[in-house]
């Protein structure tokens, strides 16, 4: 297991390197002088020249790249011109908020999507099955920023039940923290919930016709445990894969959700930075999110082995 962990961790290095190269190239292929773009249209020629020097834009491209990598390794994501502080400071401040939102959404998505998928599979072709199938089809097609707005319109504007924007502090009590969290995490949970319902439904349909399910019944196991223990654990592998993939949706969706609800996470940071034309912040934040995503997928990979003893990841495949 130790060797396996080490190997897995080492395997993400090339991916991270490619991620860094992509962002590096994107920032360097900007049409015109990147310094001019980064500083915006009001900057003077002297400012631009000075900034270009500061960024090392006059150095050969290779040394620029190595400098860039070294900066990344030392967590130097550059400085924000409009916030007047290092980007990493901004990221560290915003990161927990986004993760809180994404994880809440993930939990909601699982609490809704997994049972819905199980029930739909258990009652295949019943009314409830069609209901789940239809809702999941609509769910995956949902523009979540619109759903967010509609939630605001309904629950905040019309009913006045929940706040439309901002983030509460859990220090002021559970409800103070939760009431701000509810709407954005529901909006963000929609697509993953729909995906989970779909994947659990189809993998449970496969699992419930297996002999070991009948064998469990023949042992006198209660139907609830037959489905939720013997069945579900076998359906977890595809679910894990989808969870890993959905993190991409959650982190990308967070950008849009945070905009709607003014949730002070990395997404709102990106959107604010776009408005301020502070592209250094945009690029660094996106890079940071990509790194998080790679790390999350590493964790999911490791969980695979825990969930499914048959998967032998050391040799790269199942037995």
């Amino acid at each position, binding site marked *: 297991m130790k060797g396996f962990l080490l190997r897995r961790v080492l395997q993400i290095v*090339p*991916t*991270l*390197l*490619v*991620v860094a*190269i*992509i*962002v590096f190239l*994107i*920032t360097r*292929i*900007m*049409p015109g002088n990147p310094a001019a773009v980064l500083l915006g249209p009001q900057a003077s020629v002297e400012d631009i020249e000075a900034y270009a020097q500061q960024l090392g834009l006059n150095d050969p491209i290779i040394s620029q790249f190595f400098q860039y990598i070294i900066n990344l390794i030392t967590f130097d994501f550059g400085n924000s011109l409009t916030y007047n502080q290092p980007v990493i400071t901004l990221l560290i401040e915003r990161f927990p908020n986004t993760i809180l939102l994404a994880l809440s959404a993930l939990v909601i998505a699982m609490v809704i999507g997994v049972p819905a998928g199980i029930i739909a599979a258990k009652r*295949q*072709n019943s009314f409830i099955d069609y209901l789940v199938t239809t809702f999941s*089809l*609509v769910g*995956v*097609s*949902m*523009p979540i*920023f*619109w*759903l967010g*707005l*509609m939630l*605001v*319109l309904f629950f905040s*504007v019309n009913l006045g039940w929940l706040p439309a924007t901002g983030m509460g502090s859990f220090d002021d009590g559970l409800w103070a923290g939760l009431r701000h969290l509810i709407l954005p995490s529901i909006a963000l949970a929609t697509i993953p919930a729909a995906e989970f319902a779909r994947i659990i439904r189809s993998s449970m349909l496969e699992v419930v*016709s297996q002999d070991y399910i009948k064998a469990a019944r023949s042992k006198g196991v209660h139907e609830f445990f037959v489905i939720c223990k013997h069945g579900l654990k076998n359906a977890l592998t595809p679910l894990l894969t989808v969870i890993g993939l959905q993190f*991409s*949706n959650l*982190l*990308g*969706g967070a*950008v*849009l959700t945070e*905009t*709607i609800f003014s949730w002070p996470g990395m997404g709102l940071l*990106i*959107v604010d930075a*776009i*408005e301020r034309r502070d*592209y250094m912040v*945009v*690029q660094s934040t*996106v890079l940071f*999110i*990509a*790194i998080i*995503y*790679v790390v999350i997928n590493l964790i999911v990979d490791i969980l695979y082995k825990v969930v499914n003893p048959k998967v032998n990841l050391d040799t790269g495949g199942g037995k």
Partner: protein
Amino acid sequence: MHNETASDRELLYEEQYKRAQKEQSFMRKLLRNKLAAFGFFVMIVLVFTAIFAPWIATHPPHQMDVTRTLLGPGEMGHLLGTDSYGRDTFSRIIYGARISLIVGVAAVVFGAVFGSLLGVISGYFGGKIDAIIMRIMDGMMAFPFILLAIVLMTVFGQGLMNVIFAIGIANIPGFARVVRGQVLSVKEADYIDVTRSLGAKNTRIIFHHVLPNSIAPLIVYATMAVAGAIISEASLSFLGLGVQPPTASWGSMLQEGKDYLVLNPELATISGLAILITVLSINLFGDGLRDALDPKMKI
């Protein structure tokens, strides 16, 4: 061994079950096809709307009128009301279909062409080329789709063509993966060996044998990708990184609607519904297409 024992199986109700499933999947197909037919119908309507927008729209989409701002539906001859500049919402929705469809199709064509090319090269030649291309694709896929598009837009700047490029580029790795997978499975087939032994060149094998066999999953994937691209365009425009104002795009209309949510909730509601219905019908159609082409397809 598995198959052998499976064929030995003598469970009547298993056969029953299979027959039931067959019948159900047939029913399902029928239902699915109904949904797919519905999706297709909506798509056709959308295409016609986009083409004949000038004839359908009741007002010019950019015509402002400060005396008629934020009207409700039906007021003063505005079917769906007006926005804060007094522009007719109905007409802008009609014109918005153009942007959505153009970006959706063009970005996916762009992504499909370059992605397929990379996928074919990667899958067909294998080895180091494959490793390098796929590592790059993995790297690109490490970015949440919309974020990659955002970063690209910060470089390209606003504008219709740039939106197409940004979403198109973000689409490349997905297509590369699908096509590579197809190529690998086709490459294993015996008839490719036969063709090669007959002296066919690489390019000939690729264009005459490998690509045609990859077409079915490619079409299904592309259909779904169009739905994704339309959402992405709306997202970018919503964030102010899409097409330039005053071009009518559903995403930018939603952004404007967001600021007038209390005064004029129709604007946000309708533009979002337009996106949802469009994306849903394309997804329904894609689902049906997959079932019709090959139900076992794993996309």
